[in-house]
């Protein structure tokens, strides 16, 4: 491995604003004041990032806590609490220098002790996803008041991406003095957090809203600009959108913006559509159960891939706002993505493949029946399922579409393995190691939600999965990911259907509501009102 020592200089927002020329069109000094109202689709589970992967929780607490590092638009790593960091040449030791002026909302200084406590006691022991990455860590230690060191057991290239993706890792820095000596699951701060972030917690009115106010002592100078940030809970999709149109709520994050309304919003001057990269790389897929007597035949799966019109799904189910997914990695994860192994729409070939596979049409023109499940909540998945049913009917396959509530669906597909085909969203970013590998590795055939419920196993791809994350050379690692995609697209544990676009909608009265690729869970420290 090439010896590499990387140091990243301080790039605080203030510094950047003075040193980098701001384009004239944007030359507007952010103004203080105002209230931004953000819609939440559900009540947060708790305001405790170490306990959950619940999105409304993260949409809220990202304003109250900080992470060590964050992602930029191109999924590169940028500073948050860590002003700089170095990685040792062997890729095992990560040393972080932490800002010295950060304070908790109760006035106590934030030091590397808090960082150590957060990782060793809160995140690693409680977060649902800790098991997927923490086993790479040999130790996490504060070596100075503002110096913090992670030592890994073996090289793990995606490590910084993990730390920069709190939804995947829970990696917010939390106050040691508040959590120490108490049960981290029942601490009162889980409902009333004391953070270091741009906004301070005021109240959580159950069922209604969470209210935050500006932290005047925020360590990023000048920020935030808003006086208040309110996160209002609005469970009904149609009513929520009406409230947005009426201006009662100012921001809808991407997956609660109804796709059938995007075109209308695009034309309306009162609103703006925002997109600043996408770290999640969310793909909609059709999972295929490899235990099924017919679907276990790879030719059958390939026939389905040739027969399903994914462009129609994009046009009719997603109103043309999405992109056809051409691989198991999203095109947003640009360095790893390849569309080379995609399937062409070719119903004739599909028919031929099914004949070859030993499933000729019967006297009535039919070959075999299949069940396709989806979970209520994402209407586009339902419309997609109907289009698939239509496409496969032409192939002589009788598809029964069945809808369940989310809990029953998850139970059936991922715990009972009682399905043939199923509509499911999988994230594929920001790094495919922790987003993609977990779905298709043989050791992930577990009765656990959102892993390899398909029962797909190929030792060849497992072997690459097991080594690629040690490869520090980006070009070499990308080549390994091309090999992975080649195998996955040939074997088709799931058929990629569409890439969901991360389009957020905001009132035109505000600027910089979204600044990065995790717009739905990012802090609103840069947002300001224009008047």
């Amino acid at each position, binding site marked *: 491995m090439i010896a590499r020592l990387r140091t990243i200089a301080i790039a605080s927002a203030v510094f950047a604003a003075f040193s980098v020329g701001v384009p004239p069109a944007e030359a507007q000094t952010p103004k203080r004041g105002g*209230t931004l*109202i953000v819609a939440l689709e*559900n*009540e947060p*589970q*708790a305001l405790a990032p170490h*306990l*959950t*992967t*619940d*999105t409304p929780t993260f949409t809220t607490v990202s304003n109250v806590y900080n992470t060590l590092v964050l992602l930029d638009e191109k999924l590169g790593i940028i500073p948050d609490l860590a002003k700089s960091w170095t990685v040792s040449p062997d890729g095992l030791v990560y040393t972080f220098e932490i800002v010295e002026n950060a304070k908790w909302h109760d006035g106590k200084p934030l030091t590397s002790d808090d960082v150590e406590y957060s990782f060793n006691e809160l995140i690693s022991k409680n977060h*649902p*996803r*800790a*098991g*997927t990455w923490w086993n790479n860590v040999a130790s996490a230690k504060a070596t100075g008041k503002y110096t913090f060191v992670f030592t890994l057991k073996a090289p793990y290239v995606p490590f910084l991406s993990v730390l920069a993706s709190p939804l*995947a890792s829970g990696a917010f820095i939390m106050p040691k003095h508040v959590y120490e000596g108490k049960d981290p*699951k*029942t601490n009162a701060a*889980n*409902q009333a957090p004391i953070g270091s972030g741009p906004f301070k917690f005021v109240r959580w*009115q*159950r*069922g*209604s*809203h969470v*209210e935050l106010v500006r932290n005047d002592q925020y360590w990023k100078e000048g920020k935030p600009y808003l006086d208040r940030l*309110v996160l*209002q*809970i*609005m*469970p*009904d999709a*149609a*009513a*929520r959108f*009406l*409230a947005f149109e*009426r201006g*009662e*709520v100012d921001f809808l994050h991407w997956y609660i913006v109804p796709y059938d309304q995007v075109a209308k919003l695009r034309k309306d001057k009162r609103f703006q559509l925002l997109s600043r990269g996408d770290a999640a790389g969310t793909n909609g897929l059709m999972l295929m159960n490899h235990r099924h007597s017919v679907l276990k035949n790879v030719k059958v799966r390939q026939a389905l891939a040739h027969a399903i019109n994914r462009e129609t799904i994009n046009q009719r189910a997603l109103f043309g706002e999405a992109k056809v997914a051409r691989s198991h990695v999203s095109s947003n994860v640009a360095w790893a993505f390849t569309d080379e192994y995609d399937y062409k729409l070719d119903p004739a070939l599909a028919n031929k493949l099914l004949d070859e596979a030993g499933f000729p049409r019967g006297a009535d023109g039919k070959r075999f029946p299949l069940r396709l499940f989806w979970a209520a909540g994402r209407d586009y998945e339902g419309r997609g399922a109907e289009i698939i049913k239509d496409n496969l009917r032409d192939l002589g396959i009788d598809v029964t579409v069945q809808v369940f*509530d*989310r*809990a*029953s669906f*998850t*139970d*059936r597909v*991922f*715990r009972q393995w009682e399905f043939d085909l199923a509509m499911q969203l999988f*994230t594929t970013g920001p790094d495919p190691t922790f987003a993609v590998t*977990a*779905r298709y590795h043989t050791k*992930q055939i*577990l*009765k*656990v*939600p*959102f*892993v390899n419920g398909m029962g797909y196993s190929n030792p060849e791809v497992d072997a690459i999965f097991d080594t690629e994350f040690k490869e520090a050379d980006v070009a070499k690692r990308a080549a390994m990911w091309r090999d992975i995609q080649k195998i996955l697209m040939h074997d088709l544990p799931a058929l990629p259907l569409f890439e969901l676009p991360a389009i957020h909608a905001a009132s035109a009265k505000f600027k910089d509501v979204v600044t990065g690729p995790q717009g739905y869970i990012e802090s609103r420290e840069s947002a300001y009102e224009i008047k």
Partner: protein
Amino acid sequence: MPTKSLLIYVGGRLLQAVPIMFVIILINFALIHAAPGDPVDILIGGADATPEYIEGLRREFGLDQPLWQQFVTYISKIVQFDLGYSLRYREPVLSLILGRMPATLLLMGTALFFSSLIGILLGVFAARRPYSVGDYTATFVSLAGYSMPVFWLGQIMLVIFALHLAWFPTQGMYSLRAPSQGFGRILDVAHHLVLPAITYSFYHLALIYRLTRIKMQEVLALDFITTARAKGVAEGRVVYRHALRNAILPVVTVIGLNFGFMLAGSVLTETVFAWPGMGRLLYEAVGARDYPVLMGLFTVLSVMVICANVITDVVYALVDPRVVYR
């Protein structure tokens, strides 16, 4: 009506409720656990948690115990008024429910009060002029309201009165952009209350209206009414003192029942209008398979139905002197 015998009667009824409650809890417990789905799946959300982590959660919440043992634990806690701990929110169920109760009581209380009042008045009005234009109009409007599903009616109300006319806010219980204090806050809540209350009222109004109209028509045709009129009693007094008092008994029963069922009725209304009440809590708990919250809400619901029944009986005695409790 002697107060003492009434008290004994109410006490007896409440005692009877204890075995009923036990059976209700048993049935609820069985039904809730028979539904497919696992609360742990919802808790870990979109994450690919390890099996060890999932087992840990099971142990923490006692979900690894045999079902009968979970039931015994639940019952032994409930007799101490401990409704357990929410899996989703990691908070005591009782405090979650009590926190949401005022919003539901306000919404449903307002809706039921006004719809009962208006329903009875309309019913009396229609019964006095049966088959008139007014009668047909009232019947048509109330039946239309009754037949429209609450979530649909709610959306239509929002589109007309919130989006186009902009008379009322769409979501929630308070204005969050500029919070008000004191009297302004009361007005603010009232302003937010109008649309959800009207939406829910329609359903209830139709029931009360139809029932009152039929009963009033029956009673107005009876001999004692003719006698009263013949005696020269004023028409208003005949209708409201003589007839309505006789016709209202079954109406009181229905109103009482609806108070008991207000939690069930509030689910859709509260969801559409983002009203922070118990109905939404129920809706969320179903989606998350949050067993303790579901059990707690159903238990509270059962208590409400039983109490509503007892109160209805007491009200009976107040409006009808013939009813005597022994």
